[in-house]
């Protein structure tokens, strides 16, 4: 298996000790079959004090992610062995990797590819060619968002218990399997129950988007969240037409006529 742990590249060694003194080092898994792309991204992430683990095919990606539990994964789509879509699905079905944020980095730039990636639950989708600086900023933003969730512990509203430490949700004592994006969305809503969260607020808070051009992504995630919560808990996620969404602490149950 070709797997490198990059810390020095282009003959340049990052002073890791100093980095440790100033901040906690992030471990990032990069999955790309183009070694030159891996080197380029590694160079920039090393400068940010991140340690990079690199693998060059899909099969190794799944195995390494489960073993190393990186804080984030940068995933190419067109990979030998197993493509990025398959890798992503496997990551999300494994309890050890399902909450690791994933940024898809791909040469597939068609709108349907980007939408597909985001609808599957990727935390971000960046197309090649990309600015390394922009990539680093996006990674930093995702890490910041995911760390926010980890920092606090448990949040209880009615039958809903969000365990932010373990990225898990139980409703009425039943464990509900959510992706990291779905859990973040629910957490934002549940933190301020019965308060309308605008679409742009949610798109920014959960996905980091500056505008609401990705509103279909939001609707899809809300629908999937309701489906996963099932009856009657799905009714706690309320829609306010043309406004946004809210967590309804006591939904009105409709009695059949």
């Amino acid at each position, binding site marked *: 298996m070709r797997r490198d742990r990059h810390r020095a590249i282009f003959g340049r060694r990052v002073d890791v000790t100093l980095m440790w003194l100033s901040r906690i080092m992030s471990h990032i898994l990069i999955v790309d079959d183009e070694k030159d792309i891996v080197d380029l991204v590694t160079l920039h992430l090393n400068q940010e004090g991140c340690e990079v683990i690199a693998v060059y095919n899909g099969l190794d990606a799944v195995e390494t992610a489960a073993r190393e539990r990186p804080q984030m994964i940068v995933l190419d789509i*067109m990979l030998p062995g197993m493509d990025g879509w398959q890798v992503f699905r496997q990551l999300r079905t494994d309890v050890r990797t399902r909450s690791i944020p994933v940024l898809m980095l791909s040469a597939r730039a068609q709108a349907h590819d980007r939408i597909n990636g985001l609808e599957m639950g990727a935390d971000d989708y960046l197309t090649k060619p990309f600015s*390394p600086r922009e990539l680093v900023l996006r990674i930093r933003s995702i890490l910041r968002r995911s760390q926010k969730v980890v920092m606090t512990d448990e949040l209880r509203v009615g039958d809903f218990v969000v365990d932010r430490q373990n990225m898990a949700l139980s409703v009425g004592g039943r464990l509900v399997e959510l992706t990291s994006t779905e859990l973040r969305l629910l957490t934002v809503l549940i933190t301020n129950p019965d308060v309308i969260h605008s679409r742009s607020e949610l798109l920014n808070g959960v996905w980091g988007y500056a505008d609401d051009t990705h509103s279909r992504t939001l609707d899809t995630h809300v629908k999937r969240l309701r489906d996963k919560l099932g009856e009657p808990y799905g009714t706690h996620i309320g829609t306010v037409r043309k406004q946004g969404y809210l967590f309804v602490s006591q939904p009105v149950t409709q009695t059949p006529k």
Partner: protein
Amino acid sequence: MTTATFTAEDAASTMQMLLSRAEVELRTPLALIQGYIETLKTGAIKNGDSLTRCLEVMDKHSRRLMHVIDDINAVAQLQPGGQPSVCDASFLQRCLETSVERLTPLIEVSGTAVEAHIPPGCCELKGDRMVWHLVFTKLLEELLRNLPTNSRVSFKASWETSGCALEVSCDAPLITRGVAPEENVAWSEAALGLLVVKRALELNHGSLKWTNDPQQGCRFLLSMPCADGCASKHCR
């Protein structure tokens, strides 16, 4: 004999597929060139060795861009409506020799051994001669670029009910993306160069099958139609 007929709609959708593939193939080398230019501008690369490595990467990927542009040129030539003609029995042999001759520098650099077994009295192929040349040259070029160095490529002609079959076998697998190595290769994920070969073959009413095995290597089977009333002893 099974022949494919192409409507204007088929041609348009194939062209769209080829161009969208070309777009994907342009993006990665462009990402590397732009990425390293940005890196150089930030001053992150300071020592001479690193600078040399950086320039080598940019040089390698600018050449890769040139190959994609060559493939796009080939795509532009793939228009239906070419003049079909009957190629004599020695055409296949000559055509392969011409391809090998054109690609000799690449063959030498890659250390690939290329051999051809075209028995005498071969079929008289039918189709646009220029397209046949494109098929063999582009296929060999793709193999030379994507096989490991010092591989062996063998061309072997035989006969089937619908015409001539050319089996191209390699002792190593091609590196492909997006498909499990043990499966038949999904054409939608194939490299642009191979898609050009497939499309060119279809324009001459032939077909192409491809298997890629990590242990056995890769194998291409080209089915090529022969002329009505072909004088080959196998068709008589």
